[in-house]
């Protein structure tokens, strides 16, 4: 029933989608991390005019499906084509590629900012008080004392978020990008062999996620040498 020749035929086809999957995940995770950091830090000041809009942004992006966000950006903003053209941003929202990256970045930025905010809050207060007592200003306390500790603490939770993003890139196939899941769907409807295609495409994702988890565990071990036995 299971035919090895068929796997040899579909695996290269599926792997052709891997660079796009990696590109979407890599770009949005990096940009999203930058956004998350900015949002988390901006909330440290506790000024309502900065905190409130961020809380609303985070709540919206965490409370609605990623697919709705992608559609809203790709199809929804397409409705404002003349306006976007006049401000010279139409090239960005015309391309499904950039729309997917924008949606994924905003989404992971919202989730990531909550992870980082929690990690910053969990840094013991005594440490930042000690830094202030040493005469460091607030900015340097954050940069030299609080952030290094917080980022290290946040790593396990953040690796979950990265895995979610890798899985999230599959939604880009719905707006016509042919990454791994998009190719898998085409192959299934051409060959009618859903189980084999699922196994092959699923294996690609599982191996990819395994490598990411492994890499981040190694990074965590490097950053916390005192915890090693």
């Amino acid at each position: 029933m299971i035919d090895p020749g068929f796997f040899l035929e579909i695996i290269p086809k599926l792997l052709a989608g891997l660079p796009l999957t990696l590109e979407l995940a890599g770009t949005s995770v990096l940009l999203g991390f930058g956004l998350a950091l900015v949002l988390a830090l901006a909330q440290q000041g506790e000024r309502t005019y900065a905190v409130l809009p961020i809380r609303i942004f985070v709540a919206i992006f965490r409370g609605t499906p990623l697919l709705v966000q992608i559609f809203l950006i790709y199809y929804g903003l397409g409705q404002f084509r003349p306006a976007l053209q006049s401000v010279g941003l139409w090239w960005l929202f015309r391309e499904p590629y950039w729309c997917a990256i924008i949606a994924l970045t905003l989404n992971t930025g919202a989730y990531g900012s909550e992870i980082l905010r929690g990690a910053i809050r969990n840094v013991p207060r005594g440490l930042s008080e000690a830094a202030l007592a040493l005469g460091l200003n607030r900015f340097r306390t954050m940069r030299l004392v609080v952030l290094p500790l917080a980022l290290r603490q946040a790593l396990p939770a953040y690796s979950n978020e990265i895995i979610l993003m890798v899985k999230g890139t599959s939604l880009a196939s719905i707006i016509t990008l042919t990454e791994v899941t998009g190719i898998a769907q085409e192959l299934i409807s051409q060959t009618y062999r859903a189980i084999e295609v699922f196994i092959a495409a699923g294996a690609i994702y599982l191996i990819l996620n395994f490598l990411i988890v492994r890499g981040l565990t190694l990074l965590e071990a490097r950053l916390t040498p005192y915890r090693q036995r």
Partner: protein
Amino acid sequence: MLLEAAGVTLLLSVLGFFLGAVFGGLAAAGRLYSSKVPRGLASVYGTVFRGVPDLLSIYLFYYGGSIALTSIARLFGSQGFVGLPTLATGILTIGFISGAYQSEVYRGAYLAIDKGQFDAAKALALTRLQTLRLVIVPQLLRHAIPGLGNVWQLVLKDSALISVIGLVELMRQAQIGAGSTREPFLFYCAAAALYFAIAGLTDLVFNRAEANASRGIAHR
């Protein structure tokens, strides 16, 4: 029109979530079992459905199910492609995916129960079934509720993906509306607002359940 579709989303999510509780409970029991076969099966199930994009799992169930059904129909002399009923497929798929997540929640909750509880139940001469029903499950649920709340939020958002197999739930209805009125921004904003409202309201339910399950427990 969108409200009616939101009802379908809610139905799909709730039934999928409860089906997932059955799969998740079985898988958690398998993981905690002493013999190797159920442990291996349950852990493969959990790893695969948590590690693979949910969209891919949806394609597996939809196309896989339809292909199986078509070949069965062939045996009875039917021609052509037989599609699966989309609501049933959606519930089954969500049940399978959320079951993988729920199994982790139940396993963690079981392991969080104090070992002394089992000894105490034995000392009271409760049978295994009585121990499970009267002692373990109530405490397990208390530990599991926060985790289940997270899985529920995930299920609700995943239900939007079921739109790709053509079930007219909230997301699909918004697409239809956007297509016929050429007002995609309006429709997707409305859909987002409805998802947001459902997520917020159901979150309150879980908070109430959590407070109810942990009454009489000292808070730190």
